[in-house]
């Protein structure tokens, strides 16, 4: 029972990341009609916002380490520690939550720049051309990050208060040995919160209503005198924020490298296709579903029967879903169909 609960939770927190990226992909596809292969790069850029904030806060001076006598050794002492003592160290320790706040405006700007600077010129081009140009953009962004931060993953820790395990068993009246990492729980609940916020924005605000109307019939909304294009540009920015925040929050779970976006992009496209192209609820549902399936496929008992199944299960599920429901779980008729 405990094992199943833990595996379910684990699948949900993985699924949270898949769902957030897939949600942004679907938003962009649904509004602008662009298949954005650079969306994974936005997730990666969000992660590197967290890295950059951490480096900025940890900016240090080299101090001679007197405890080492047989060669000249130095240790790093952050300026924040020199200036503010323990308070400075605490600020550095909380760099990831701080970076989430920083990521929101930074990612909005990056998103707007990406849409206005490049992607808007490809609205009326074929999907194949959109894929080529956005894939190229993803490679360029990845290489820039590689030049700036190097090729290797950079670890950044969660704040000490939430770096350890949460007493899940005690909360639920189950075994006291049942624990789950605090940060993963926070990630899961933040994912759900962001997803709810995006849906609420689209469902319960006038702005969101116009966007939905534009997604359904762009021409008619335009005839009503609404500049739907500007609103879609804002939606692109929102999608970039969602991906960026998801990336920044993922840093304590997985140290990012320049290739992080590509690793997630492939999975996220599978999620979008399984959920149904253009369907926001489909993307979210498929994200969580595939995360949970992948998690259960990693259990020793399952791998004993089917070795290596954890590596291919997502693709097997995708094949099965597409065979049974070619439009995906919640796909609409006519989307990406000739």
């Amino acid at each position, binding site marked *: 029972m*405990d*094992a199943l609960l*833990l*595996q379910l*939770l*684990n*699948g949900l*927190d*993985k699924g949270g990341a898949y769902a957030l990226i897939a949600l942004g992909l679907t938003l962009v596809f649904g509004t602008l009609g662009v298949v954005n292969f650079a969306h994974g790069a936005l997730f990666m850029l969000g992660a590197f916002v967290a890295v950059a904030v951490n480096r900025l806060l940890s900016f240090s001076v080299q101090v001679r*380490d007197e*405890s*080492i006598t*047989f*060669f*000249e*050794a*130095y*240790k790093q002492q952050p300026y924040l520690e020199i200036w503010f003592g323990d308070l400075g160290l605490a600020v550095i320790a909380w760099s990831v939550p701080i970076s989430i706040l920083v990521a929101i405006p930074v990612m909005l700007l990056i998103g707007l720049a990406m849409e206005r600077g490049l992607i808007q010129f490809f609205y009326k081009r074929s999907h194949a051309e959109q894929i080529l140009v956005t894939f190229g953009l993803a490679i360029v962004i990845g290489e820039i990050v590689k030049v700036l931060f190097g*090729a*290797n*993953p950079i*670890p950044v820790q969660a704040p000490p208060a939430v*770096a*350890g*395990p949460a007493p899940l068993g005690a909360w639920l009246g189950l075994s006291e*040995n*049942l*624990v*789950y*990492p605090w*940060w*993963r729980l926070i990630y899961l609940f933040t994912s759900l919160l962001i997803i709810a916020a995006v849906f609420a924005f689209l469902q319960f605000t006038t702005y969101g209503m116009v966007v939905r109307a534009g997604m359904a019939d762009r021409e008619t909304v335009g005839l009503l005198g609404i500049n739907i294009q500007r609103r879609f540009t804002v939606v692109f920015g929102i999608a970039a924020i969602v991906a960026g925040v998801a990336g920044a929050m993922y840093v304590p*779970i*997985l*140290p990012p490298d320049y290739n992080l976006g590509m690793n997630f992009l492939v999975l996220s496209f599978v999620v979008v296709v399984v959920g149904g192209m253009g369907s926001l609820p489909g993307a979210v549902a498929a994200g969580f579903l595939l995360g949970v399936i*992948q*998690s259960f496929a*990693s*259990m*020793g*008992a399952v*791998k004993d029967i089917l*070795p290596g199944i*954890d*590596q291919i299960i997502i693709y097997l599920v995708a094949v099965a879903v597409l065979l049974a429901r070619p439009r995906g779980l919640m796909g609409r008729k006519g989307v990406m169909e000739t």
Partner: protein
Amino acid sequence: MGIFDGKTTRRRVLKGGAALAGGALVAPTVFSRGAWAQNFRNDPGDSGSVTFGFNVPQTGPYAEEGADELRAYQLAVKHLNGEGDGGMLNTMKPLALKGNGVLGKKVEYVTGDTQTKSDAARASARRMIERDGVVMVTGGSSSGVAVAVQSLCQEMGIIYMNGLTHANDTTGKDRRRYGFRHFFNAHMSAAALGPVLKQEMGTDRRSYMLVADYNWGWSVEESMTKVTEDMGWETVQSVRTPLGAGDFSQYLTPVLDSGADVLFLIHYGKDMVDSLTQAVQFGMRDRQANGKNFEIVVPLYSELMAQGAGKAVSGIYGSSNWLWSLNNEGSQAFAKSFGQEYGFPPSQAAHTCYVQALLYANAVESVGTFYPVEVIKFLEGFEFDGMGNGPTLYRAEDHQCFKPVLVVKGAENPQTQFDLLELVQEVPTEQITYPHDLYPGDLGPYEV
């Protein structure tokens, strides 16, 4: 008056014949350095320099180890060329090197990135051999890479001095005539760790293993399972995880409900840092199972991993090939030299690579030629000391070094920022030695 001046007499012909015969007898010793000049690949000939190939992971899960290996190789080149303080050239015995390069030729080097992938490593090694004309390739870290590159080097007739590779296969079933390993292996780790684990954790334990899914992981899994089960432990489950998985949470959650009270993390490099950090996040350091403290064991430890995992390693047992803090003159000479150069002490990966570069150079200097067959014959059965591990033998039958193995644990009360691992026991060579045919393999021919 010359022998052949046109006035041929019987006496002169006899004189000439005697001179030629005498010359033929003397030639192998007088001209020995050039005797094989036409017969082997990448012979440096009369060039004033010779090139080594340093093929290390600069990206991928073992990149940290690769970076330290490269530092060590660069330091070795300095010392070979007579620069710096000489490091272990001051302590190595027997020593033929003179600090003027190798056979008087200045040592230069090229580097490659294995990416911790066998195909990339082979491509990089091939480039070094074919384009850069290296006389020797060396590097690591990954047994998958080691076996692949060693095999390529055998085919191309270039000696491969393995860096950090720990699988039994490297000098077992995949041993090669042109490949040599100074580093210890999984069998030795298990033989050294077993008695310590028995003493510290008892004989009634249930273990769970997370295993890197390639030849190194399988080797350690096999060796550790045998040793622990022989002392009464039960293996509850052994799960293989992909190299470079990053997020190991899906493999860690089943451990919590498995009934196991010991977790073996058979991961290395960044994978080990990730899996150990995540295991700690899942509360495995403060856990009770079966009425005992839950324990984590990392069969192959390194300072770089300990540094990456931070406080999570405190008190966790493992084995190591070498520690910079060992109290012997070779270790101290190397640690001092490396520390002065880079500002921090070397890792075991750096140590084994430095030693391998020196051992190859010393072998060449000793036999007076770069001809690989002679170098191989010199290294087979070579006994040396002063390189940080005490008296060491390069066993001829499988090209595996035999020396004491260190059982270590994460430092609990570090005195300096570099006290990451502390020595628990130096296990003597006799305890970890095994017959060369325990893991049967074929070295292959000398001439290729």
